[in-house]
């Protein structure tokens, strides 16, 4: 599989979960693990651009696919706007749910650049945050959406 654009090949046990493969075998500990029942979403990563709960995917099933984790959000030393948004709007406290929230938020904005509050709440409703009460997460995603909209209008201006 590829993980954050790098080709990865490993000999593994068939039952190994993707979350443990990423964390224990590749040392990508940004992806977290928080439940036994696929309810918490701290483990969300992308497989071929779609958010998946990596506790519910066997590592072997990810073979041949493109996996992206929170460590792969920053591009060329530039934080993704959702990462900036979470910092700007206090979208995290302990930070444990944050990587999963960020991956879902990024995927949402890729599909829907201008989501409503309700759409954001629905997008993250498979994930639990015990600290923030969600309102600041919603604002963080809105901040990122506005930032991206803003960027699109300012780039031509700068280029002119």
């Amino acid at each position: 599989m590829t993980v954050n654009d790098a080709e990865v090949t490993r000999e593994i046990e068939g039952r190994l979960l993707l979350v443990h493969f990423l964390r224990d075998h590749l040392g990508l500990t940004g992806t977290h693990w928080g439940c036994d029942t696929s309810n918490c979403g701290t483990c969300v990563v992308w497989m071929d651009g779609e958010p998946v709960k990596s506790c519910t995917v066997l590592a072997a099933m990810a073979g041949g696919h493109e996996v992206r984790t929170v460590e792969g959000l920053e591009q060329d030393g530039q934080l993704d706007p959702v990462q900036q948004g979470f910092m700007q709007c206090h979208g995290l406290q302990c930070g444990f749910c944050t990587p999963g929230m960020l991956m879902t938020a990024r995927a949402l904005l890729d599909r829907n650049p201008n989501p409503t509050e309700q759409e954001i709440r629905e997008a993250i409703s498979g994930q639990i945050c015990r600290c923030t009460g969600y309102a600041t997460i919603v604002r963080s995603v809105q901040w990122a959406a506005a930032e991206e909209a803003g960027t699109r209008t300012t780039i031509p201006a700068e280029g002119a």
Partner: protein
Amino acid sequence: MTAVADGPVTAFEDNDLKPVGFGRMLRKEDPRLIRGRGRFVDDVQLNGMLHLAILRAPMAHARIVSIDTSAASAHPKVKLVVTGAMLAEQGMAWMPTLSNDVQAVLATDKVRFQGQEVAFVVAEDRYSARDALELIDVEYEMLAPVIDARTALDPSAPVIRDDLEGKTDNHCFDWQTGDAAATEAVFASADVVVSQDIVYPRVHPAPMETCGAVADYDAVEGKLTLWSTSQAPHAHRTLYAIVAGLPEHKIRVISPDIGGGFGNKVPIYPGYVHAIVGSLLTGKPVKWMEDRSENLTSTGFARDYIMRGEIAATKDGKILAIRTHVLADHGAFNGTATPVKFPAGFFGVFTGSYDIKAAFAKMTAVYTNKAPGGVAYACSFRITEAVYLVERIVDCLAQELAMDPVELRIKNFIRPEQFPYTSKTGWTYDSGNYERTLREALRIAGYDELRKEQVERRARGELMGIGVACFTEAVGAGPRKDMDILGLGMADGCELRIHPTGKAVVRLSVQSQGQGHETTFAQIVAEEIGIPPADIEVVHGDTDQTPFGLGTYGSRSTPVSGAAAALVARKVRDKARLIASGMLEVSVADLEWVKGSFHVKGDPTKSVTIADIAFRAYGAGDLPEGLEGGLEAQICYNPENLTYPNGAYICVVDVDPGTAQVTVRRFIAVDDCGTRINPMIIEGQVHGGLTDGVGMALMEIIAFDEMGNCLGGSLMDYLIPTALEVPDWETGFTVTPSPHHPIGAKGIGESATVGSPPAIVNAVIDALKPYGVRHADMPLTPSRVWDAMQGHPTPPI
């Protein structure tokens, strides 16, 4: 957000760049956390590290007949299997709890709750350790369990704690406060008496990161390093020294990034001790990380108070007295993390925000075959239960008197001029202006409009409810004359060092689980010493690097450690002033401090900054006579009183008459936590607590069946609010500084968890008024609300 809230939320104010001060500042911990580069306990990977898994009791009460570990030991990847009998040989099968009871590290004689630790395995990897658990054969002889606290003291009830010398019943402790006779006299002559049974069910803090540890014993150095999910690393180290007999200076406890605590990470759990034993015996680092069901079934629960509240008043609504009897379910071991002299925590503040004539509370605590714990989930040492009781019973009184709940509260508030106010149970409230806080909440809510809307909706058959709750907390434990945990006084140390170039490091004894200490404490020091928060490194969570103190829980960081940080900075500033007087060749009295520098009175051109002074303090050249070099100080702060934050909360709910589903439409929270250091962080703390409140009021419960099987053992069964169950919070604030705190700040971390459940329940009961409902117990799930509407409130669990 409203006009009085914390300012525009989309604007970026980088007051990192501001030289000093309180105000909205982005968090210093975020850059690593948003990159996935936090370091949580489970992220610790050490060479040769082994993995530990725990075998747990499948039933609530049984005698252990035999344990056969031979097949597990024979597993090729297993390094160690340990049972209670093996620990008993070393005298380590039992350990003290934070309440001076004992708890089994591994069960020897009996198992006393479902999920209790019976044996552990250390293996080469996570999965093999779990595999080997399946190979351990335990023969149990089933015993009848005690599940309902109401039957725990029946003469026929089986005795759970037969490990305790001479124990013949399930009695844990009795406690009382206030004046029984005076209260009875007031009740006997009162116009109106209302009484209501109220249950605060067992819930669980369930932080997103479960509990765990990595123990690494270095036999050559004789030193144990323990990374653990601990809210109180120093207290834990001292207890390990006492229990394991290791010298204290050879134990280093590190609490790295912690994925939420909420009191779940205050106690010492058997698993931490297992990891230590595992590392001592194998000579290798050993990691233990519990899974979610272990977290929910075996670690510190919260609440479980069965209360009867009684309130006496005049016909025109003057509250005269409050009385309560409580039956407290403490589970199989009294593992309550609470100051020793306060077995019921700070439940004694159950008289709330009201000025009354008399009060009395009496409590009986019992053992049952359930997991231990009790003080957790942001409860401020049981103030959640106290506030729920008083705010519910006051609403019952309002209903009885047909009075508006707002009017009734305002009529009975402790008035601003009465502070400091000593309550009838002996608590000295430091400051507050309750009516102002409530009026701000009413303004934001548009209370009168809401009541009008409610009338219209009722006329259409719709069920809309408006709930009010006004709370007073008592946080920042605590003055060491009264408060200690296992003999350790609840003071906190702080050290501040200014480096020669004017940058600083501040070392705290408290530990963050998401509260943003690295930011807030930098701001506190910045405010006092006049250098930017960005130039101040905050070190915490490592016993080798920080001064002793009791840790972060009960909203105590800002009241206790925050005071320590301000005072240590003032101490440094005092020394800086002496050095400055030498540098500027004027007397100390002729110097003026303007954030960040001293200048000569009347001549601001003659000035030296803290950086100039620091360089002189370590540099060449003379210092004033008798002054040592260096610019640093330390302190151990002993608070003179608790701080008493308060708030007024208003909740608006809609109940579907067809399905009994409750929707929280609006929630208005106005908090007064005194001086506000970082409004952004304060708002975040409030939001989180309000969400807890929705969870407890409507969804969360750790229930058991009659055999003691836990019915809330996974996140499929223990329902926690997601983004869809909570509204967009509306917050506001008033500021009434604490007179005894050096910067006037009070705690805020738990206010919303304490204050929101009664507001939500009061709103639901208000919505059900057409059905004549006076009370229903949490969680107000559709089936319970439906039952209440049918006139059969569900028997409380």
